[in-house]
């Protein structure tokens, strides 16, 4: 088992209730047996009445199972098992793996798997592209209609109207465009919707124009637009590319909760390469996030970037080894002017960039016209994003002193995700 903290366990618990119940269960006397081997831990926990629950977990990569009836995964038994292991690994006896402990499949695929036919694969790809093109054309017509009738009329449309357009884009196999439609619907709920929706409609129009002229664009921009539409490059195709071996420090993590899928964005800073990478992790249904790194974790690994006009998303080529972060970090910038200049350049390469990572020092919380934000050492101020719920925690930790911070810049506001406090990176 690799290096693990209680904070990691807190990160994988599906909610506070499960975590607190798991902590209450984290006592050896509540477990009939606790055992481990090189890759996994397992135990039997006495449940209510006469039930005995069999729980197990492995961390490379994280996978778990339990035969309890809970619909929340990982359940309290698995979280408790992990908590116990972090508290005192010695109470787990080294043992042979019993039959009920699942041998989780390795993440790399074996050669015995059936290889798809390359010709039919190409045909499927072409069919999908045609489908997307037809959906994009339809969306383009919708945009023109919308702007002829006015956004004030769109404002009055009901949920069914928006659901129809979102579903139409899903049918066109363009989930990225469906997401854009959903975003526009959300923007109509804001007070400043006339400006926000016009910006979003304009950017969507540019994206659709780009898709229509795809063959004329550079390969990097083509890859970016295809990603924007919602076609992801296969992980296996990415992993064959050369990567960057580095000590990657987790400087920020945030989770977007969706109706069907939760997306965790983990930002990593390469301490030798000075590159920032974005690792995306997904939780669907009962499948939880595969990685449990918290801010401050140091990962020694090789990372490969996905193709794009401004590559940020990356994948681990080798299994990361975790360790405590001790080395001082050299922030990329110490002024908003530099950071936002970098953002403008990035936007020049990828006009559809939604979040831009900023790692800065000498930032102090400050209020301007009843709105909280951060000022740099040159007294330049930018606002926090409205959704930033930890502003008072950040203010409290700063005590009015300058901080080193990591966060996402949306083009209009800043969302802090991690700060250095008492010489350690902690998440917000």
């Amino acid at each position: 088992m690799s290096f693990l903290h209680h904070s990691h366990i807190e990160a994988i618990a599906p909610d506070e209730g499960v975590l607190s119940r798991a902590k209450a269960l984290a006592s050896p006397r509540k477990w009939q047996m606790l055992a481990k081997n090189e890759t996994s831990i397992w135990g039997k926990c006495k449940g209510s009445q006469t039930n005995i629950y069999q729980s197990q977990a492995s961390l490379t990569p994280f996978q778990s199972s339990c035969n309890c009836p809970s619909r929340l995964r990982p359940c309290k038994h698995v979280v408790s098992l992990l908590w116990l292991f972090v508290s005192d690994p010695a109470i787990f006896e080294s043992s042979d793996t019993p039959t009920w402990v699942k041998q989780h499949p390795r993440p790399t695929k074996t050669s015995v798997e059936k290889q798809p036919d390359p010709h039919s694969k190409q045909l499927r790809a072409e069919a999908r592209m045609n489908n997307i093109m037809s959906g994009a054309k339809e969306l383009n017509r919708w945009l023109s209609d919308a702007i002829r009738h006015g956004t004030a009329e769109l404002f009055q449309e009901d949920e069914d109207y928006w659901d129809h357009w979102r579903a139409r884009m899903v049918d066109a196999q363009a989930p990225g465009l469906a997401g854009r439609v959903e975003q526009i619907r959300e923007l109509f709920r804001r007070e400043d919707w006339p400006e926000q929706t016009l910006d979003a409609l304009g950017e969507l129009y540019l994206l659709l124009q780009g898709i229509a002229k795809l063959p004329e664009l550079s390969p990097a921009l083509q890859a970016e637009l295809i990603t924007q539409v919602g076609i992801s490059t296969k992980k296996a195709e990415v992993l064959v590319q050369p990567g960057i071996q580095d000590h990657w420090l987790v400087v920020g993590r945030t989770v977007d909760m969706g109706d069907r899928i939760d997306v965790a964005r983990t930002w990593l800073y390469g301490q030798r390469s000075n590159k920032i990478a974005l690792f995306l992790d997904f939780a669907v249904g009962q499948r939880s996030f595969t990685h449990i790194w918290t801010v401050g974790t140091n990962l020694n690994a090789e990372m490969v970037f996905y193709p794009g006009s401004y590559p940020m998303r990356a994948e681990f080529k080798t299994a990361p080894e975790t360790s405590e972060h001790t080395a001082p970090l050299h922030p990329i910038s110490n002024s908003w002017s530099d950071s936002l200049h970098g953002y403008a350049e990035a936007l020049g390469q990828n006009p559809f960039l939604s979040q831009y990572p900023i790692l800065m020092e000498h930032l102090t919380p400050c209020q301007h016209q009843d709105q909280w934000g951060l000022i740099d050492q040159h007294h330049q101020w930018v606002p926090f994003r409205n959704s930033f719920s930890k502003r008072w925690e950040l203010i409290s930790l700063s005590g009015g002193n300058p901080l080193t911070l990591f966060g996402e810049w949306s083009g209009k506001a800043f969302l802090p995700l991690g700060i250095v406090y008492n010489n350690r990176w902690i998440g917000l």
Partner: protein
Amino acid sequence: MPYSSSSLIKVAMLGLNRAPLPEKLGLLGLEAPILGEKPEARLLEAAGFQSLAKKAGYQTVKVETKNHLDQAEAESSSYMDQLANESLKQILNGNNQLLLEEFLAIIRRRKQLISPEHLPKFFQWAMVMKLDRESYLPLIGQRGHWLASLHPFWQALLPPKPESWHYGTQEQRLDWLRYLRKQGPQQARALLQAEWKSCSYKELAKMVEILSIDLHQEDEELLLELSRHRRKEVRQVALQLLACLPEGQSVQRLQTYLRTWIQTDGDQWTLRLPDRLSDELQAEGLDQELPIYSGVVGEKGKWLVNLVSRVPPSFWAFQWKLSPFSGLEMIQADNWANELVLGIAFAALRFKDRSWAMALVQMGVLENSPFHNVIPPPLMEELIRESDSEEFCSCLVQTIHQTDHAEELASLFMAMIHHQQQLSEDLAWIFAKKLAGLLHHRTQHPYALRAFVYQLSDLSYFLPAPLYPRIAACWEQAEETDPWYEKHIEMALQILEFRYQMNGYESITPAC
């Protein structure tokens, strides 16, 4: 014609069917053919470029130095350790939040400070739970004072400022007076003395109530003045407070009235109540409603309870040279026994007379009175709290040793809760073992045992923390097959575990 973002928004809102697009869109120097040929395409492209231009050319705001935050001053005490941080985090996340005040007391004893990362959530809880300032102000340090002063609501958690007396709301004025009274009773008295004439009667009644904090004989002059106020609401509060001053003129007068109602014949005495209440006695407030359901006490009984409750219980001992026990026996022989006992119970509380409270509890006269169903629970609890601790505990030890009934053990447990006192290790251990035994043989009195186990979670507060591992092991030995018992014992053990860690221990490990 220069491009204007607002004109573009206006056209987009109205729609091109209603508003024509400006002929020239000079944005970024872009003109056709980059901009589309159709008006819809021109508008959407212009909007798209405008959006990107706003992002790429974002203008930061320069904030004047005078508007920067002041820095919080350095702390003179250390922050909580990791274990305490973990406990507080759980409490603030809504897990065992009822233990917050207990946790704060532990941190106060350790002279530590709440860590800055927890201050915002803690302040939210402090507002919701309306915590006393004394319980948290020593724990928030300079950082907490600094942070609370920045927040529009959390400012109320800090000590009030003198200007709130002049410019604040009624609540803020009362807060300032209460704060002043706690700092120095004479300052609050002087302020009220100088300004009471300008206060509304509703506000004044609430302000007079504040004088009950550290009430002193020196408050009598002001209270006498207020007892003649034109409004009944103010007079009643003042009279109640005057009746709490054993050396005060009011109490002396009431003792004289009481003597006139009692007729003695050697060692014997009888009560004769007047047919109507004189104006003087009405002015003393003897016709006030009782703080219990009034239907069970007649009009004359009400006068008697009011009068007796405002005379120190020592009056009875002094008058007839009787101990509290023999005094209560004598009173019980009278026709007005129930009203007298009730009046004495209120008086024992008002004048904090421990020996009479002890006698009332141990003789069980209140439980046997016809009023016992209407006596407010706080009265019984306070009486038990006022009674003598050492003697009470020794009684408990004897009784616990003797009892084999869940019902009796449960009532002893309830008495302990009322008593609000941590048990000695010996007594706690006797109690825990006894409970384990009852759980093992729970054939008798199942209802009482269930009611008892239901409240088991509260028990751990009264048990000394070093004993927790032994108690946990002892209770777990009672093998459970009933899910109801299992669930409640498990809950109690969880709280035991949490409290154990809150007290600075790592974890309960099995001792048996």
